């Protein structure tokens, strides 16, 4: 696999360089060299201690070449409708097997740009050169691999003082007959005083062991507002490795909601860099998994300047033999006085085969700060369960009600009614509760 990817890069290096220009080409070169040196992560690495890529790497993949063209499988709108948020008027950027589908998309260049990286290398090479691989500071093989090879994905640019008139949905569908390994990258820039809401989803439409390796770079300028929701509910054969980088300037607000409800293996690296004072970051996560599913959340919030706030709440409900990992790192640098940082990770294990490894990691180098963190791992509260049952609520329903109540906090930062309804329905389904 490692060699295949190195060869793939070598084969396309010249074309990639021609397309993206010297500056990006040299970033790609450095990245692939580093990837070559590092190899894929193993469980011996501290950052991959609880998550093994072994079985994912054992699969034979077709790797999507950077310049792949549209597949033969024409998807119909109606095939996908259930994934779109019906009744939500939104821009849509849709990719099928890593290739942009203009037919399924609804983009714009009016007032704001909602389009693709693929089409922008030609149209706005300077802008892209400036924003591609500008924030993805992680020295991790998968991020490096993506930096070397990715040239397609969604591009969102909201100009100064503009509130996007509609939310934006980004979809990656996979339909390939053979397991597919794709590299995709989203770039989001919210200029000062601007505002936008984005929903991202990766979805395989068959039971093949597809693997998507995604990177998202988000720059939130002064006084800008971003709300980004990741809806991860893939088939139980699919792997998603995702790294998202958020850079916040002064007085900005950024919310990232991550709903991880399915997939064989999901790894989310979510990294916030609070670089301007009064920036406010919200990281909300909900994991609802069962069977052999595995979800690993690794978050990092860097308080680099004074007077910033971060609020992080991750919840998880684990059934079957599922395995959750939460590693929440908060860095408060010496100059970051008056930092407010809150982190909470609560987990319910529904049986004794399910497993959670949770590790808060606070590194605080400033003295005038308010930081708190906590984590809990438990079963459903027996007293609460008896209380509900003694009122006549059947056991399964009582359990579901308690789980719903537990999961509820994770919806605190979801504001679009259509999205909230969708998530409610999803949570009900995952917890096997009939929607009332």
């Amino acid at each position, binding site marked *: 696999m490692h060699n295949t990817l190195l060869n793939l890069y070598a084969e396309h290096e010249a074309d990639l360089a021609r397309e993206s220009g010297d500056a990006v080409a040299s970033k790609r070169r450095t990245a692939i060299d580093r990837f070559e040196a590092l190899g894929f992560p193993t469980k011996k690495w501290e950052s991959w201690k609880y998550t093994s890529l072994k079985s994912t790497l054992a699969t034979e993949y077709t790797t999507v070449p950077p310049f792949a063209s549209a597949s033969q499988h024409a998807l119909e709108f109606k095939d996908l409708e259930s994934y779109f948020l019906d009744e939500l008027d939104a821009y849509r950027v849709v990719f099928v097997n890593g290739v942009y589908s203009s037919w399924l998309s609804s983009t714009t260049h009016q007032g704001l740009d909602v389009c693709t990286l693929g089409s922008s290398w030609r149209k706005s090479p300077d802008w892209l050169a400036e924003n591609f691989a500008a924030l993805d500071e992680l020295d991790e093989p998968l991020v490096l691999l993506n930096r070397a090879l990715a040239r397609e994905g969604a591009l969102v640019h909201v100009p100064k003082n503009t509130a996007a008139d509609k939310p934006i949905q980004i979809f990656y569908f996979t339909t390939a007959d053979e397991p597919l390994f794709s590299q995709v990258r989203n770039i989001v820039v919210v200029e000062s005083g601007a505002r936008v809401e984005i929903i991202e989803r990766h979805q395989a439409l068959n039971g093949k062991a597809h693997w998507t390796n995604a990177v998202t770079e988000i720059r939130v300028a002064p006084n800008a507002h971003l709300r980004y929701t990741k809806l991860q509910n893939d088939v139980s054969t699919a792997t998603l490795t995702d790294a998202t980088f958020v850079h916040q300037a002064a007085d900005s607000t950024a919310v990232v909601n991550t709903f991880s409800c399915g997939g064989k293996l999901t790894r989310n690296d979510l990294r916030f860099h609070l670089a301007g004072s009064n920036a406010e970051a919200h990281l909300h996560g909900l994991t609802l998994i069962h069977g052999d599913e595995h979800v690993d959340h690794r978050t990092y919030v860097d308080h680099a300047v004074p007077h910033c706030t971060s609020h992080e709440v991750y919840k998880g409900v684990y059934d079957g033999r599922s395995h959750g990992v939460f590693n929440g790192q908060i860095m408060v640098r010496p100059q970051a006085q008056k930092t407010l940082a809150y982190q909470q990770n609560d987990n319910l294990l529904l049986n004794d085969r399910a497993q959670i490894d949770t590790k808060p990691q606070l590194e605080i180098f400033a003295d005038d700060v308010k930081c708190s963190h906590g984590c809990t791992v438990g079963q459903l509260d027996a007293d*609460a369960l008896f209380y*509900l049952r003694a*009122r006549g609520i059947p056991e399964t329903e009582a359990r579901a009600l308690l789980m719903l109540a537990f999961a509820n906090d994770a919806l605190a930062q979801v504001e679009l009614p259509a999205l909230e309804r969708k998530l409610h329905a999803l949570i009900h389904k995952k917890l096997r509760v009939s929607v009332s």
Partner: protein
Amino acid sequence: MLSIQNLQAGLADGTSILKGINLEVKPGEVHAIMGPNGSGKSTLSSVVAGREEYEVTGGDVLLDGESLLDCSPEERAHKGIFLSFQYPVEIPGVSVSNFIKTALNSHRAARGEGPLEAALLLKKMREKLELLEMDKSFLSRSLNEGFSGGEKKRNEIFQMAMLEPRLAILDETDSGLDIDALRIVAQGVNALKSPTNAVVVITHYQRLLEYIVPDFVHVLLHGKIVKSGTKDLALELEERGYDWIKKENAGK
């Protein structure tokens, strides 16, 4: 209606708590159970309501002649048993109205009826809130979360009023209530009373029994009913405490 026969129960580790309880409750009656702390009053009510944590090691609990011991807590609730908890549980994220709606509709489903129409449900909730002099805002609050002691107890009686049980067991519903709240709670209980229903009131104080007048008073001591009488027994206990009863039973 309720017949408790030589009931023995305890913890899973073998500790025995109830050591042969006998109690007959007929429709229309009000029974009071009094007794010092730790005598087994809450255990008795939990066992009747079906808490699985306790193991029944002997005897039986019958409702209308049928044993309840193999019934789940929810089945017992559907048969008309209601327990007002001594310590109502806080459940963040579940609103009072959602809870009561789910409970009420579970009862209806058990009777083969569909869910109660939203408007009728709301009307009923309003009526009962009024009876208990509670504010509408109660309905949207998280169940018992941040409730004062008095609010929790009123909320229990509100649920009872909504579910209209045949047999209500009130476990120290009066403790923590001021005199006004006590009067209101009693009003709620008395409104439920009918020739076909019955109430078992567990209390430390004679106070509540001035409002909910018992037909029988029982004293529970060390897991046994050691004395039964009329409401005069409650007055006597108020005056003399439990020591004389303990002494009376010391030899046995």
